[in-house]
């Protein structure tokens, strides 16, 4: 990661500090801009065109609600479901641990567990697929 630019302007007792650097997901050319202005901090992530358009399918899959992905880097400490299970809204699917705290990842609706790519005690990256759900057939 590289450190690029800090700009500081003064005006009416106000300060703005801004910085641009390569994003956390290295090798993808992602950029991140941090701005601090009047006590407020703003972070803007610019994903490169390639991953925005080129792989639309994967992108939408990431965002769809029947996919459980790791919201943060950490360890999988409990998998509360098995393949074929019916899960309901609010039901805990996976428990993760990061920074010494336990986090429960819950279902956003009623689904059937399709597959569980993660294993117990796996150290996972942010955004890694944990559980694949599928719609309940009516």
């Amino acid at each position, binding site marked *: 990661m590289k450190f690029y630019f800090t700009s500081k302007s003064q005006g009416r007792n106000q300060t703005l500090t*801004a910085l641009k650097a390569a994003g956390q997901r290295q090798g993808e050319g992602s950029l991140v801009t941090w701005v601090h202005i009047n006590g407020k901090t703003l972070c803007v992530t610019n*994903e490169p065109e390639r991953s925005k358009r080129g792989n639309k399918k994967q992108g939408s899959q990431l965002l769809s609600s029947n996919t459980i992905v790791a919201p943060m880097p950490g360890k999988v400490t409990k998998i509360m479901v098995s393949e074929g299970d019916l899960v309901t809204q609010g039901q805990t699917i996976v428990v993760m641990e990061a920074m010494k705290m*336990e986090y429960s990842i819950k279902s956003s609706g009623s689904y059937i567990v399709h597959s569980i790519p993660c294993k117990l005690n796996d150290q996972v990256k942010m955004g890694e697929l944990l559980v694949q759900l599928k719609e309940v057939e009516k």
Partner: protein
Amino acid sequence: MKKKLIKKIAIANRGEVAVRIIHACQELEIETVLLHSDVDINTYAYRLADYKICIGSAPSAESYLNIEAVLNGAIASGADALHPGFGFLSENSEFAKRVTDSGIIFIGPSADSMDLLGNKINSKKWAQKKQIPLIPGYEGQNQEVEFLTKKVIEIGFPVIVKAAQGGGGRGMKLILNEQEAKAQIESAQRESKAAFGSEQIFLEKYLDNAKHIEFQIFVDSTGEVVHLFDRECSVQRRHQKIIEEAVSPSLSPELRSKMAQSAVELVKGSGYQGAATVEFLLDGQEYYLLEVNTRLQVEHPVTEMVLGFDLVKAQILTAQGDFVISQSELGLPKGHSIECRIYAENPFLGGMPSTGKILYQQWPLGPGRRFEYAYEKDDSVTEYYDPMIAKVIVWDTNRRGAIKKMKRVLKDSIIFGVYTNIPFLIEILEHPDFVEGIMTTQFISKYFSDPIEPPTFSEEETQWITDTSKKLQNFQISGGGGDQLSANPSKTIFEFDPFCKMWRGV
């Protein structure tokens, strides 16, 4: 105790507390050895320490919690004494004993007094003898989940489950009804095992309208049990303190002196030496013993600020047999001090941990402002440890002034690279219950159960950000792709970060 001059101290900790200990050692002209994990070479403490020994890999169980590894490191370093800081092995009596047995001074109480006061079950028995009020609960040896579930129903909801070896909010779970009892007990046992190496838990009736008040105790080589007045730490989330202050705005002089007496009484006769904290829950005018922490506390700076007393130096001097404090010389607290814990987390996503490289960090120095931080620019905040990356402490002549100062200081503190809870802290400081000092331990869950709103920007600010963005555009990143910044910078991370949408809550 025999007097022995300490020349070199091994630090069995990391982060901002390691920095705090190193600063104290530097003033006392004592050399320091940092016993660290492999990932922690990118921390401020690593750069400050005179010597460093890597004792293991990143997961705490393989380094900071590994008694064998820490002990071997301490012996190899040739240190005369070891400071455990807080968390990790600081309240592990077996560790304290083994350090002492290897001929190294353990900066803290003896293993026996630690077992007596630090173990939550033993301390309750001890307190009962001294007629200090206790919260109803179960602290027996039977650890079967079914049995504990029955006990939970007996005590009556809400009930809190705690790790017998615990501290810092880890392994603590709240049970509100029968349905979730089993799951919460199991979860507490799991967290306790992971964090403290013991599954043993106990149950306690949960007082849901109480304040958290604690008394700082210090015992030097003379054996006099001195109290350094109180701190209030009612602002907690998931039993983890967020904002602490000294002294509490809620105690009348009579109540303060009564509680201080109880705290002193509890420690008396236990053979204790060094710093301890006696924690109480205050419900109206009634107070109950919560637990005793047999170590330095995260929030020790607020006590230092109002009393002008250096607790870490006092710990070290006491360990080498010096006399450092007496109640009569201590004096009364002056002014008001507040501490805010800076956590690496995203406040707009309900406090989800945020890891990454610190790209930039700037603290607004000034009178009555103190900053204790763990990382410098280009250091990495990893997922292996506690999310606390810094503490901001202010002092002013009164509470109102201290709140005002803290708000300004937080607004002027800049951290880029990870999200922090600073916006959340500012909202707390502005809440009428906090301003009036009437907050309870339910304060956060009552008023801040939802993630806070992302910031909004005025037209003028938006214009300024847009102009800056344009300037930044000229800086190309070699090999990088898209360099365009948003034309509408008032959009926040919610629109830009795909991961925020996947978060399904805690």
